[in-house]
């Protein structure tokens, strides 16, 4: 394993398999009466969230607590950051307090990498700007592998606001590493110009694709990240790219419907579709805890030095 988890680009197929296999064991811990193991006793994990987040922060907090690590939650509001402290000074403060791992979410792409230059702690990227969200990608890969038994050759469509989506970047790169066939779907304005270099296909037509899919991954329309108008109206978007009941009916029976949350019901996904049997959106959340436990364990469980033997 690497020292940090910053990008899906840093992970080989073997690394991904190791993380998913380790998560498998941690998921069993979540089914016990006592959902806690002493693996990371005495370690300190700081959740450093400078952007709003509920599920990722709680998921990381639960993951660290189930490993018996001490957890400190630190968010922008009401902290020294609100008083104007720089990222560097805040990071050095966390370092001085003896953090073993820092889980960072930040609105600026690249801030986790920057953080690694200032601190000795292991850094885990919990979402940086419009760049990457590797833990989400890994829990999605876990869910797909669990349901389909494999990742290689899976036909996956990632639909929606790919341009602003760090989930889409991390997931596409992860899927391509694992040999899946990925198609990015959305209005041309929301497909990044460099997308062909990711090793994915691009399509502007969702309807032709649905009957051939193993996984239909819907992205959230991120209205808060759109400074310009990328599509004329939400209604038009929903009509052209939303996963309606009628569209979902054209998916093969074995196909999974996934969404990283939080959902805009009625925009990118119909309420009925989100709750139908093929939808594994809630399982994605459960698997997220196991994946984050696996990552904390793999990063903090060794000394990080080369093996002596």
């Amino acid at each position, binding site marked *: 394993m690497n020292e940090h988890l910053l990008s899906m680009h840093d992970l080989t197929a073997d690394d991904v398999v190791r993380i998913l296999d380790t998560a*498998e064991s*941690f998921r069993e811990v979540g089914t016990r009466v006592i959902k806690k*193991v*002493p*693996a990371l006793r005495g370690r300190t994990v700081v959740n450093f969230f400078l952007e709003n987040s509920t599920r990722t922060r709680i998921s990381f907090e639960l993951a660290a607590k189930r490993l018996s690590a001490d957890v400190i939650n630190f968010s922008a509001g009401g902290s020294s950051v609100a008083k104007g402290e720089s990222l560097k000074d805040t990071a050095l403060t966390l370092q001085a307090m003896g953090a073993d791992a820092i889980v960072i979410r930040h609105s600026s792409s690249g801030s986790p990498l920057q953080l690694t230059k200032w601190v000795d702690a292991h850094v885990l990227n919990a979402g940086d700007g419009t760049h990457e969200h590797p833990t989400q990608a890994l829990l999605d890969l876990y869910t797909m592998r669990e349901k389909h038994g494999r990742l290689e050759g899976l036909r996956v469509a990632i639909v929606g606001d790919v341009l602003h989506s760090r989930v889409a970047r991390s997931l596409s790169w992860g899927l391509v590493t694992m040999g899946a066939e990925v198609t990015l779907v959305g209005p041309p304005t929301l497909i990044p110009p460099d997308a062909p270099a990711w090793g994915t296909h691009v399509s502007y037509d969702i309807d032709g694709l649905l009957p051939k899919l193993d996984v239909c991954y819907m992205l959230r329309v991120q209205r808060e990240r759109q400074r310009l108008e990328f599509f004329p109206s939400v209604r038009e978007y929903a009509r052209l790219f939303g996963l309606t009941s009628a569209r979902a009916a054209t998916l093969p029976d074995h196909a999974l419907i996934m969404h990283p949350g939080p959902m805009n019901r009625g925009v990118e996904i119909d309420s009925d579709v989100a709750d139908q049997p093929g939808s594994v959106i809630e399982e994605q959340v459960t698997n997220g805890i196991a994946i984050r436990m696996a990552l904390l364990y793999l990063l*903090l*469980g*060794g*000394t990080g030095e080369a093996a002596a033997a």
Partner: protein
Amino acid sequence: MTATVMAVDDIRRALTRVAHEIIERDKGAGDVVLVGIADRGDDLARRLAAEISRIEGTEVPVGVLDITFYRDDIGLRAEAPEVHETAISFDVSGKTVVLVDDVLYTGRTIRSAMDALMDLGRPHKIQLAVLVDRGHRELPIRADFVGKNVPTSRADQVRVQVTEVDGTDAVTVDRAQEGA
């Protein structure tokens, strides 16, 4: 220099004897459950269960325990230790749990296994069955059932192979070179 200390038949006879001893000690096998420590301990546990079933006609539940999260050397080794699966589908509370492992050495694995078991419930008793006891305990732990005592030096390597994992049954000792 490698010496075979137990061959296929030796292992089979040892497991048969241990199965008899478990039945004798626990007065039948009614409340007994076997929990093998991954990996290889679980394979031995399944074989013991089959023996007990053959002798006594009692089906004994078998579980697999992974002790990785309970190890006392996490963070001391270069890489995080590899994690295996824990699969115990029954309640251990009130049961006589026989932990099964291939080699008993420092006793640290067994200490971890007992901690792990306690988190899963409150067994009435915990006993320990091992195929090989090679000595050099670092904790006050002893086995209740031993397949074979094998005197070793700390530098020796004891290797247990089971058909389920390795394709063959054997216990071998790589003796450390003189002066090495």
